[in-house]
């Protein structure tokens, strides 16, 4: 091939036909078996394209067997056709499946148009595509109490039974006789309805007992109950933080805390997950220009998506050094781990030491509801008055309150230790079996075992297979996790037998391998 520097480009180059036109002419000649014309047209093909399409014998087309007997002509035609009109333009794929797998919920977060009702239609079309292709992981319903095995129906009406890692009931209290008995007794004594805000007449004597029990569990005696865990997190922040204050929040903190921060102030800093040094820098930074306003530092205890927790000892100290206040959400760890069920706080010897602790009952305590605790009676009264989700919500029902109180009693008893020991036996069995099969469990042993998948398509496809193969697992993807790092969140219960956990791990591995083959994907799940 001749050298062709810029200075050698001539006006004939300028008006030469483009390569698409030339390839079309070559294919046309090939159809007539006219290899001479093919070669003549090929001589005009640009150096650019020749050096790109090195698999085409551009200089040797005249020597092809025009009869096609040796198959070479057909191969050249196929390769050129693939360049000129690729297969996907000739063979369309299943548009439903493609649409279902290629989008994320966030794609629909800001719909267009002024008709609030009509503009939800695009999202609904996508949900329908996900349903039709059985890749919609939401809105499944239970047919009976969720035990270590559960029977469920997906929202297409398809029923399955499987080993259940889809329920949040870490100590298996939902089937515990004493818990059920407490619910029955409260129902008999107070009826099903709390009939008012906790600020008015929504609480009962059981509520007071529950506040005392929770205060003893976390070592902070002033406790306020909320009707849901979400409202406790949201309410604690909006109750305390005003527009000129600051919130410094772990990037992966729970949605109720992120939303609370956004609602309270525009001064929100998200710091790198668990990075206490980053918090120190942000606080120094804020204090260098603002010595007058408050700073609330917000983190989870056990993070539900990554199964890890921060160094709270250092974090609390750093906060005090900068006159910042620390709020820790112990929704997932309180009751289910740590000495006497005291969670991450107890594991770090911090009972009674954290500024503000909030939690939710829905993971271990067998009910809706949440709480905010501190050592300050003033903070308690302030939160009750200014956290609207407390003041303006109907109180926890008497049945829920009684269930949580009984759960708190068992958690602190020797039986609680026994249940946690059984829970951790199952956790280790599951993690060991998954890891032994080459899969990646994130974080530390805890009731949540996040199994890293990565690509959303792979996770959605594997989830579809698991449903049919008898494992119920919750797949989490954007916006719960960042784009491209989807995972299965396996929620273990004390009632899981170790062999059930190992069986589930085997099924999960098979489903992932089959999905990978189905999608023909080469990506692994290492982070970087």
């Amino acid at each position, binding site marked *: *091939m001749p*050298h*062709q*520097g*810029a200075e050698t480009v001539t006006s004939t*180059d*300028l*008006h*030469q036909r*483009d*390569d*698409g*036109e030339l390839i079309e002419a070559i294919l046309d000649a090939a159809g007539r078996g006219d290899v001479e014309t093919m070669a003549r047209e090929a001589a005009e093909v*640009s*150096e*650019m*394209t020749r*050096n*790109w*399409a*090195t*698999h085409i014998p551009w200089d040797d087309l005249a020597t092809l067997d025009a009869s096609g007997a040796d198959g070479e002509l057909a191969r050249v035609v196929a390769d050129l056709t*693939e*360049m*000129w*009109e*690729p*297969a*996907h*333009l000739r063979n369309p*794929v299943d548009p439903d499946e493609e649409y279902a797998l290629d989008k994320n919920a*966030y*794609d629909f*977060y*800001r*719909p*267009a148009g002024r008709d609030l009702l009509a503009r939800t239609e695009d999202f609904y079309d996508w949900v329908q595509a996900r349903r039709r292709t059985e890749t919609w992981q939401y809105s499944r319903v239970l047919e009976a109490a969720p035990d270590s095995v559960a029977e469920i129906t997906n929202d297409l009406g398809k029923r399955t039974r499987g080993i259940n890692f889809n329920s949040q009931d870490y100590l298996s209290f939902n089937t515990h006789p004493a818990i059920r008995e407490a619910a029955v007794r409260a129902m008999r004594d107070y009826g099903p309805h709390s009939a008012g805000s906790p600020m008015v007449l929504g609480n009962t004597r059981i509520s007071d007992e529950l506040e005392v029990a929770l205060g003893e569990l976390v070592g902070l005696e002033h406790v306020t109950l909320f009707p849901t865990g979400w409202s406790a997190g949201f309410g604690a922040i909006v109750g305390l933080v005003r527009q000129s204050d600051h919130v410094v929040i772990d990037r992966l903190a729970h949605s109720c805390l*992120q939303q609370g921060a*956004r609602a309270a102030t*525009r001064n*929100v800093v*998200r710091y790198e997950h668990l990075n206490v040094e980053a918090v120190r820098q942000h606080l120094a930074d804020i204090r260098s220009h603002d010595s007058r306003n408050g700073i609330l530092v917000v983190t989870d205890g056990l993070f539900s998506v990554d199964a890890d927790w921060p160094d709270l000892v250092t974090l609390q100290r750093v906060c005090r050094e900068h006159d910042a206040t620390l709020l820790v959400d112990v929704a997932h760890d309180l009751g289910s781990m740590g000495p006497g069920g005291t969670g991450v706080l107890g594991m770090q010897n911090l009972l009674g030491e954290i500024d503000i602790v909030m939690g939710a009952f829905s993971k271990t305590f067998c009910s809706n509801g949440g709480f905010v605790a501190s050592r300050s009676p003033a903070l308690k009264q302030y939160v009750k008055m200014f956290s609207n989700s407390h003041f303006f919500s109907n109180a926890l029902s008497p049945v829920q309150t009684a269930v949580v109180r009984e759960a708190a009693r068992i958690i602190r008893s020797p039986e609680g230790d026994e249940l946690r020991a059984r829970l951790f036996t199952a956790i280790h069995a599951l993690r060991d079996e998954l890891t032994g099969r080459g899969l990646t469990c994130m974080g530390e042993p805890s009731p949540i075992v996040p199994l*890293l998948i*990565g*690509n959303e398509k792979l996770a959605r496809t594997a989830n579809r297979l698991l449903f049919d193969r008898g494992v119920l697992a919750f797949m989490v993807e*954007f*916006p719960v996790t*960042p*784009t*491209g*790092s989807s995972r299965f969140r396996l929620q273990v219960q004390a009632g899981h037998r170790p062999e059930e956990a190992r069986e589930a791990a085997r099924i999960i591995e098979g489903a992932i391998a089959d999905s990978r083959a189905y999608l*023909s*994907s*080469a*990506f*692994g*799940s*290492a*982070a*970087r």
Partner: protein
Amino acid sequence: MYDAIVVGGRCAGASTALLLARQGHRVLVVDRSSFPSDVISTHFLWPHGMSYLNRWGLLDQVTAVTPTHTVIDIVNDGIPLSGSVPTSLLREHFRDLHGDDSGVVQSYASVRRRVLDQILVEAAAKAGAEVRTHCTVRELITEDGRVVGVRGRAADGQEFEERARIVVGADGRNSFVARTLDLPRFDERPRCTFAYWSYWSGFDPGRGQIHRRGRLGCAVVPTNFGQNMVLVWGPSEWAREFRADVPGNVQRALDFVSPELGELVRTQGTREERIYGTLDQSGFLRPLHGPGWVLVGDAESAKDQCTAIGMTHAFRDAELASAALHRWLTGESSLDEAMAAYEGRRRSQNSAAYYDYVCTLSEMRPYRHDELQLFVALRGNQEETDRFIATHADIAPVSEFFQASNLFLLNDAAKESSAGYSVFDDFAATSRTYQQNLFA
């Protein structure tokens, strides 16, 4: 007997050969072309691409003949953003990927391949690699299922045969090595763009500009010889109609996507070469390595041109693969361990997320309302605009920008509203017109 034979002597191959030779290994690199030589390419090097050249001591040679810029303009449906990639993100990128953040630069450039590839092969030769140009590999020699060398025809027409401990396939998307080994394709994403481009003199766009409107895109970047590369692209479904009148449709696309750029090219531009085009752009991955062979660059992972990342990724592969091969060749690790380390980097979650980002973008769907709102929200938020540009160029992880809490915060911090942008006036109607093939 060589330590390595590298098939292909351009961005991926010459760089791999250069790095191996500098570490004292015996390297042969062969290419069917003789240099200088052009090949289909965006010519574009993002700042990490330029940083690799700097790390290898070749940047000055390139910038001596190539204009460079730091700030880039990205205009989506009339919503302009300008920014540059922050040094801190570049450093983080190199630390994560290579364990060493030396030599980062913030500039980008469009370099003609007849310029760049010659610099690369000459540097490889100077480093001690044996470079044979105009030399075509026609056969892989295998023994006991293992690739042990190559046979082919040299510049003088003579048949040759050479052997090595490893054969590196650096021969592009249509890799001979991959085809000969009959390697499968994974993660195929057939939807892609068609692209047409040429080189114009006579005007100065100031710096690189990337524009999108509806299902079409265009870009202009100053390149060598006092010329500008002007590129238009669109969904491959529209390629057939586009081909009916290539020069006319190039101008039509420019006028539609950026009337200002269209005007500049029409009234002041002089086209210096023929118009080139391709729609051979679909995304796929191949196995990275096997007995006696390893792939780098487009050969291992081909992607659409729409983020202009191919050359930069080829450099990345050269550093990753040569570092892995060096450990093996010096006996520091087994070949399996070395290749597993290379594969770990190349088939990671971050890689998958970026691959997905490019493949989705290359479908050239009109931007959705929420995406355009995001661009409006980025206006006046320079730090996040820069991070978006770094994300688009695969410098910052997709997962960190496209994370719910970050996007919510961007919304909250927005300084502008959509009111000033006409695309939002009757968005539904505009979107519908975007679906119509402009060239039909």
